[in-house]
């Protein structure tokens, strides 16, 4: 059968590609614009020390956001990441004296298991992830409060987590390097294995994915595991820079982490997005959190600006050709 439908791929590449590429770079562009704006507001802002500090600051947020991105890509949401990270700081602080260097992998493992439990509850009981993880949030907070005796657990000997506070090549904070490696690792695994297909299919259309034999439930539980593991790792970073663990230490990172994911341009409805986007998003959010007050924006205006800029940033970065209906 011959049908003269114009199929020259040339038309496709000429028109669609550059636009697509541009939306792919939007998170980076947003980041650059923000740095430029902050530098204009305070020329002293754009120094190597300042950027080093900002990247160190961003590390735990990057890790948290990267993990939760997988859950979002699957079409769900994980509201427990910050509470889980707080609990993990407590556990790490409690276990460091006995376990030393082993405490880090053990805490990450425990966080992974907690992620797995929530994921399993979500897929088996068919409760929306929003509710499971909201419940998880309160339960984990309660546990953290109780095991910590409702107080800070000091880390007297921090030698086992000190490595995270070193600098690579004198300038790059180790925690930031680790965060980038984590993001790269997740991205690489997704890229070279069928996982990427599975996750996107689950996020775009769970029922189609399931009927195509995609292990939807496993994929989702897996995403929650990674999300949990990342919360654990973020906790290690927090302990290394805070010299203590606390039952509410990371609690306030929840909304910034979700904001980082969305600002990166990942669709909150699932399917489209990437961990790299979340990395850029986390940097944008960090700069907003610390940059605005440091360049001298007064507290009340800071919040107003934060709200406006973050909405505008999302307006820039979201690739609408991939998401038909925005809810």
């Amino acid at each position: 059968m011959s049908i003269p439908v114009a199929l020259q791929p040339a038309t496709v590449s000429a028109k669609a590609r550059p636009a697509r590429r541009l939306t792919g770079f939007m998170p980076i562009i947003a980041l650059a614009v923000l740095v430029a704006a902050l530098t204009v507001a305070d020329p002293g802002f754009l120094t190597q020390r300042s950027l080093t500090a900002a990247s160190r600051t961003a590390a735990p947020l990057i890790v948290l956001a990267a993990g939760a991105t997988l859950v979002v890509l699957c079409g769900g949401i994980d509201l427990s990441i910050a509470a889980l990270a707080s609990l993990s700081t407590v556990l790490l602080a409690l276990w460091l004296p006995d376990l030393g260097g082993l405490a880090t992998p053990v805490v990450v493992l425990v966080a992974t298991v907690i992620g797995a439990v929530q994921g399993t509850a979500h897929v088996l009981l068919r409760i929306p992830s929003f509710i499971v993880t909201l419940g998880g949030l309160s339960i984990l907070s309660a546990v953290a409060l109780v095991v910590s005796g409702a107080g800070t657990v000091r880390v007297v000997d921090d030698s086992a987590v000190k490595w995270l506070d070193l600098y690579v090549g004198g300038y790059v904070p180790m925690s930031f390097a680790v965060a980038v490696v984590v993001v790269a690792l997740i991205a690489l695994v997704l890229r070279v294995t069928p996982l990427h297909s599975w996750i996107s299919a689950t996020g775009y259309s769970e029922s189609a994915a399931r009927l195509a034999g995609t292990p939807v439930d496993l994929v989702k539980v897996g995403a929650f595991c990674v999300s949990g593991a990342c919360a654990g790792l973020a906790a290690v970073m927090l302990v290394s820079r805070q010299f203590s663990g606390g039952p509410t230490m990371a609690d306030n990172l929840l909304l910034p982490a979700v904001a980082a994911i969305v600002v990166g341009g990942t669709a909150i409805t699932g399917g489209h997005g990437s961990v790299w986007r979340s990395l850029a998003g986390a940097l944008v959010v960090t700069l907003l959190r610390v940059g605005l007050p440091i360049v001298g924006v007064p507290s009340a205006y800071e919040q107003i600006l934060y709200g406006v800029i973050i909405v505008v940033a999302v307006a820039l970065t979201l690739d609408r050709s991939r998401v038909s209906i925005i809810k």
Partner: protein
Amino acid sequence: SEQAAGGNDAAAEGACQPSDVRLVGQVRNESNPYEASWLAGGDAYAKSVGLTQERLTYDGDSTKQQEQISQLLAGDTKCLVMNVLPNGDSDTAPIVKGADQAGAYLVTQWNKPADLDPADHRTWVSHITYNGVESGQQIGDALATAIGGNGGIIALQGILDTAAAKDRFAGLEASLKKNTGVKLLDQQAANFSRAEALTVTKTLLTKHGEHVKGIWAANDDMALGALEALQQQGLAGKVAVVGIDAVPDAVKAVQGGTMTATVSSDGAWQGGIGLAIGYCVATGKLAVKDIAAANRAFFAEQFLITKDNAADFVSPKTNPADFECANVFNRVAGPLT
């Protein structure tokens, strides 16, 4: 390699021109009266030495506080003076470490782990707090007296994982040991919040009914919330209420008799004194090594405010003389215990 952030050398201590000094005050937010008065106090002090205070607020978010501090310390730290309210005990150590490395002068207030001591540090000049055990006990005693030494009370705790909440409650327990006629019917956390205190109090009032003769609150905000609850239940004036902080509304309530007692924490003074101590050291008018050990970490004077003396505290007046370098330790009530 070790650290990217550079620091000042110790030799530079006290070598700052007064006009080069950078004054920074950091509190949780500008949306409660206590902390707003703190920042106002800081502004007033800065103005008195011809400078301006940079205000930082972190929304009660520990991570955000750390992030702001490290960004601040990544800038120009040569003559930096910071007067900081750490969000919780755990937040003090990294702030101290960062300031030390950057050579910034630091005064902290309220929260500090017991085993962390300014005396072991170079640029952490001082830590100021109020004796929570003492104030918790003072208002506990006042409450016991108000209900005639006999009857049930309920307690509203602050944010459970802060030293302020724990110390004050420990003070209440000490008071209860003394006042054997007073019975603690119930205790709930209301997180230093007026709104939460309102609902919790209403629930506790229905739970314990007539037995509630007094309400002990770990700060004034909660005490004011409890007052509203009493008013809504038609119990205003029939149940004694005590708090801590001496926020204007509470002092007025004490004056008017709806509240029994509160304890002064002088926000405006706290906002000024931290900057003053740092400024004096930075400009060389005060040498860290000359500061008495007892003044490196101290309880500031506090006063129990009851109907008798409430008038004196309605508008707390800070005296500029308090901030002169010779007087900065005038309000020391004693070393930390």
